[in-house]
């Protein structure tokens, strides 16, 4: 069974179609990278998958359970409990982190597992400490987000998402707000997760990273999937739009 299935998704903002009939699926352990020019709908697609935006057409399923669908032009959702259940399957790492500034580093991680998932406090703290160590933030547990570098903030955001034990983790341009050095730190953490077979969907502009880490690459352009496949095939594709995009990148 597919972990995530998006079927014929449509999304428009004020009549402007941003996503036009996109279907994609992600299996357990699979790593999908979504690339493409700005404004091609990559982030919107992630925002639809994580229910931050409502879809205007199509259906989204997690583990075969419908998370949202459109019926007679109306966006539908399952009942509250099922919605909560489905929501616990995924996590999202934002471009600009969106950490809680008034919470310490450790509290950012433990608060949701304790107050949302109602898990055992000591156990959650233990796990959070392990996560911090994994992210290279062991000595920052009592610091506040404002005292961290951008790279540290993003690693904390990843730890915060992982603490809820999601089955799939989405990344929305996780390194776009970071300089090259900090980008490297964050990409390394994502690579480590890839080695552990974490299921991930990553919207990124880091072409080499996408090529190295992803099992599948999706090239989006103007709201549709222009090219899709194994990294080497996609990068060798003779799609003129893809060539133009990569050409522009390499010229830079």
């Amino acid at each position, binding site marked *: 069974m597919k972990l995530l299935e998006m079927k014929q998704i449509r999304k428009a903002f004020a009549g402007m179609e941003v996503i036009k009939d996109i279907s994609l699926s992600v299996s357990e352990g699979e790593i999908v990278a979504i690339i493409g020019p700005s404004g091609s709908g990559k982030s919107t697609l992630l925002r639809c998958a994580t229910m931050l935006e409502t879809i205007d057409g199509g259906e989204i399923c997690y583990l075969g359970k419908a998370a949202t669908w459109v019926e007679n032009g109306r966006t539908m959702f399952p009942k509250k409990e099922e919605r909560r259940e489905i929501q616990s399957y995924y996590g999202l790492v934002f471009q600009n982190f969106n950490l809680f500034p*008034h919470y310490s580093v450790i509290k950012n991680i433990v608060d949701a597992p304790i107050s*949302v998932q109602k898990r055992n406090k000591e156990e959650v703290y233990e796990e959070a400490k392990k996560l911090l160590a994994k992210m290279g933030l062991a000595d920052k547990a009592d610091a506040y987000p404002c005292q961290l570098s951008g790279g540290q903030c993003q690693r904390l955001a990843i730890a915060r998402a992982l603490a809820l034990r999601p089955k799939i983790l989405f990344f929305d341009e996780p390194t776009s707000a970071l300089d090259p050095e900090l980008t490297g730190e964050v990409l390394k953490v994502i690579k480590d997760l890839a080695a552990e077979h974490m299921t991930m969907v990553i919207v990124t502009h880091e072409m080499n990273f996408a090529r190295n880490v992803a099992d599948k690459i999706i090239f989006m352009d103007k709201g549709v999937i222009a090219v899709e496949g194994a990294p080497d095939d996609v990068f060798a594709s003779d799609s003129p739009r893809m060539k133009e995009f990569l050409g522009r990148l390499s010229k830079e």
Partner: protein
Amino acid sequence: MSVEVILRELTTGFGQTMMIFALTLVFSLPLGMVVYFGRTSRFWMMRELVKLYISVMRGTPLMLQLLIWYFGPFYLWKMNIGGSYKLIAIILGFSFNYAAYFAEIYRSGMKSIPNGQYEAAALLGYSKQQTFLKIILPQVVKIILPAITNEIITLVKDTSLVYSISYIEMFAKAKQIAAAQTTVVPFFVAGVFYYITCLAVAWVMEHIEKKFDYYR
């Protein structure tokens, strides 16, 4: 009349001033929250009604509002009201007026929270209530403290408006003594009282603000 006697007289009046001040804060700070929720309600009727309420509260003199609260029940509905109603009218007048201002301060604070905070909270599974209480509210408090301090300091001085319905607090006392003794000394003394109170408010609020300095 010696300065000592003036001081003693004004100190008793100051007790009344502080009571109006404290009661107004106790009622208007939470009431402002209620007004804020009305102002941002999903129902347009509610929003428009609350907007009208705020604009009347801000657009007419507080002194006039006090007069209406005090005399209104009798002249409008011939209600017979006892002497104790005067303080009730004052607290009602002040609380409803200040709640309107506080509501707008709350609104400015809420608006300055980036949407990303709501989105992060939603992704982490927080309920609407948890998001508001745990994530949004603590950050709003930090943002609005300076504006709240401003309002509280204004309130210290606005308490003097109750002399318009002959409620005897410090300012009314000062006026009485000044008129009877033909001297401006009580005014100076009252001025010092107000000034020191405002100074104390500013000092306390600065300390509360410092408590929030640990982040950002």
